[in-house]
């Protein structure tokens, strides 16, 4: 029987984008750290391999664009929910054109495309947390109220609540979904404050998984046929304490994925893919 809002975490496709060489030098970063391009590429390949071979997703790989040093972080370019894709308007000027290739690829997949034509609106996918029942949109340096409004107009079935983001690039810099109704959240004051707001705004109850490290709270949950609950999360090398917390999730298939180098340019695990469910639910 067809049902709305079912099948949270069910995905068939993943869109990724290759690492441009310009990333090492030009990609935006808050820390000012040196980046080893080779390591970034290794991490990217591992990531893609997990999606493709370990999880059996159909991986759609877009070529890198040297003019877009941040283009590997495709998440920011589009928000896909159900059969609809909202093409974002990144807050960072240097990233605006990233959406072109992404939009083309999503159109090819046959999704309903919604574009943000309003010049005053900014939205990056990293600020959009979809819980399965509603959206939370971080109001950050990269995403503004108008961008959130357009998201709300695009996904009318769902409540869209805004959450101010402080001391972090994106909302999902310190949180993500770790399961149906389970929010992974960092321990920092900013993260905890954001969680409180989300809980207050929501009609639904969420469980939380508190991670000692904010960055570790960015993980990828999927619910895949024959695999069940799958969680891509940080490695023990990066965040030993947080990795231990993830290991307590006994029912999940846990896959640690290295993200050390990309983290230097503020990239989290969710940043490197747009996950899509092409299996018609309705």
């Amino acid at each position, binding site marked *: 029987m*067809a049902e709305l809002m079912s099948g949270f975490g069910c995905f068939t496709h993943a869109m990724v984008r290759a690492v441009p060489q310009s990333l090492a030098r030009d990609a935006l970063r808050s820390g000012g750290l040196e980046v080893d391009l080779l390591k970034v590429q290794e991490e990217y390949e591992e990531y893609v391999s997990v999606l493709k071979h370990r999880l059996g997703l159909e991986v759609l790989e877009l070529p890198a664009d040297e003019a877009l040093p941040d283009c590997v972080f495709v998440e920011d370019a589009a928000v896909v929910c*159900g059969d609809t894709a909202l093409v974002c308007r990144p807050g960072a000027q240097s990233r605006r054109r990233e959406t072109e290739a992404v939009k083309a690829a999503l159109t090819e997949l046959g999704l309903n495309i919604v574009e943000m034509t309003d010049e005053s609106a900014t939205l990056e996918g990293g600020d959009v947390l979809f819980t399965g029942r509603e959206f939370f949109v971080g109001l950050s340096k990269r995403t503004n109220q108008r961008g959130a409004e357009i998201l709300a107009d695009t996904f009318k079935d769902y409540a869209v609540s*805004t959450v101010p983001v402080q001391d972090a690039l994106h909302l999902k810099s310190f949180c993500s979904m770790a399961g149906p109704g389970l929010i992974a959240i960092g321990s920092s004051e900013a993260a905890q404050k954001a969680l409180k707001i989300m809980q207050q705004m929501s009609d639904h*109850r969420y469980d939380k998984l508190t991670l000692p490290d904010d960055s570790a709270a960015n993980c990828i949950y999927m619910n895949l046929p024959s695999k069940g609950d799958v969680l891509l999360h940080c490695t023990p090398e990066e965040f030993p304490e947080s990795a231990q917390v993830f290991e307590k999730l006994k029912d999940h298939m846990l896959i640690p994925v290295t993200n050390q180098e990309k983290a230097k340019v503020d990239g989290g695990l969710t940043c490197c893919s747009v996950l899509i469910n092409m299996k018609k639910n309705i």
Partner: protein
Amino acid sequence: MKMVVCHVTLLDGSQFSCEVEKRAKGQYLFFQVCDHLNLLEKDYFGLSFKDNAEQRCWLDVTKEIKRQIRNSQWQFVFSVKFYPPDPSQLTEDITRYLLCLQLRQDIASGRLPCSFVTHALLGSYTLQGELGDHDPEEHRLDYISDFQFAPNQTKELEEKVVELHKSHRGMTPAQADAQFLENAKKLSMYGVDLHHAKDSEGVDIMLGVCSNGLLIYKDRLRINRFAWPKILKISYKRSNFYIKIRPGEAEQFESTVGFKLPNHRAAKRVWKVCVEHHTFFRLVSPEQPTKTKFLTLGSKFRYSGRTQAQTRQASSLIDRPAPAFQRTSSKRISRSLDGAPVVNVSDYSQADGAGENSPALELNSDSKSQQVEVMERPNADAATSITSETAFETDGAGAPQRKSKLRVQGENIYVRHSNLMLEDLDKTQEDVLKHQASISELKRSFMEATPEPRPSQWDKHLTGSPATTLRLQTHGVPQNTPPRPGTDSRDASKSAEVKPEGNEVIEVVEETVVIEEVVKAKPKSSTPEASVPVETEVKEERSLSSDSESEDEAEYHAQPPSTSISTQQIKEEPEEEQEAELSQQAPPSAIESQPSAEAADPGPAAEEEKAAQPHEEERTDKPLLTPDEAPNGHAPQGEAPPSPQTAAADEEEPHIVNGSASRVETEHLPQVICCSEPPVVKTEMVTISDTFAAQKTEISTKEVPIVHTETKTITYEAAQLDGNGDGEPGVLMTAQTITSESLCTTTTTHITKTLKGGQSETRIEKRIVITGDSDIDHDQALAQAIKEAKEQHPDMSVTRVVVHKETELAEDED
């Protein structure tokens, strides 16, 4: 008598006209419409009209129609007023169908926004419900042109609807409606009543009133949300609307948020809608009306209909074959159970105590007699006696029915107790009836304690609820030897249940003492505390709502502020006292050498209420009474000279009221601990607070009022002699007191473990103080508290419940 013709637009778009007297009240018309529709679950619905400013207003059923509509047309719209959060819990298909019709309107008008896919899916269920299976012959593409599935319907949408319609083959209309609702209820704007407003900075926002609370939107974005438990007071003044917010964990003080409405009437409208939604969804029964003051400022408006909890209960008594009804487009008979629609409302109306005058069953707030009573009793004990009488009126007729219903369930051990109590009470017929009503009320609350089981039910019920103290004693005996008779009165039942596997069997008896404190909101007259009549059913009274149209402002205390231990409130606020006790001997249950990990089977506790109730009633003129522990011996104590135990109990009352745990514990110890053998001292730490924590889960979320948990452990190293000559001496192994505190509840758990010969005995005494005012159904809270206690100790049984309820009467109004 002058008659007027009313025109009512029904949910299917058709018109219903009927003649009413010019001075008829809203309910007359409303019942006419419901009768016409053959609708029994009417509490979710209402009639609205357009005022002079073209604004939609709900018709107050308790007031004259003419005075509400003023110069407007006698033209009304029948629609859903309270959208049930879970439509699958509605009893009848016809109710669900009407809700579907309302939602189809909401969707088509754009009031309920949906995505394309949702429009298509809901549209396809509409077709299945209205037309049945897709028929390629009959259903050509234009067959759906009559339907509006979306505000802007496209060809593409219609094609999608048809495609999905084909996939529903075989679904009955009722199933299609149910599926429609299952999906529609998930939409974020389902049941949200929107009102235009401005925030304090003049920014345009929308106030959305829904079952959970108040939502604040800016454009389509939710920018804030105030769940009902967070809201202490709702008020309006001129064109401003205010909510007072309960302080959060971090804040110390309550804050007030103000919104600017377009005009005074709009402010009042949103205020009214809030009051009604709060009462309907959040409360178990409508709030007691404020007493008539000589000079009244502000609206006394209160929602006087049934709450969702009450309507669900009433619906559960609906006993008629599913009525046949026609779905609009197809004019097909749905689920036709041949024959005319037969309405059997007997159970329904009886449950409401209406009897003779069926239209009045739902809303008795206008009953003249009640008002007269209020006027005629200005003296000292007027306030309480009025309350009890009204409660009696509301509940009296329903009582026998409930009782028999409960008996069917076989939980009748305590009927004996109840009867005993009745026989022993020297009371008037009225008192006895009232008594019965309360018994059945309390029974009901036990039996149906959780209509919607949720992990946070406990918290939800107790937030802002009356002060209630629950003391729970558990008493376990592992038997290495066959039980010796006469250890105490409980042993009688224990011996019956020696488990064959023998040695490690522990028999557990749990005693529960419940003390409930009710802070009455605004009683009028003063009465010496000692002679305050007792009333549990205060909250059952329907409000005498009278809404003067001229008022400029009004307040509504949604969640009266409460402290965990009500010392403060006792001083500040009028109170009424009440107490009841019950004892129970349940079949012992066995657990393995874990006497402190107690448990009780669900059966016994449900019965406790029956025993508990008599005491509540009996307490009428004895404010402080704790009957002794003997299961059957406590009944007549109300009039009897206090036995030693009673005296002790009386002594401890003040401490209970003030939430002082330790003193009571020490007083109870002698009854619990017996010792003669060489002192074997062993200390075991039992943390009940962990059980609490486990239930809350690390991951718990909003609306959990637990603020902090305090743990105090007292360990006795030496044996103590039992002063009560409880028969068998024993060795005290451990005794500990654990206190956990939340915003408005304090739980004190006292666990003692003694060794008696070869047996070890564990006794848990639990006291829970619930603080709040009469806003909430105390019986419900009580039932919940006991249920909670049982769940914590599933292997133990509850042997005794003492209810102590206090409501002081104030000198005058606040």
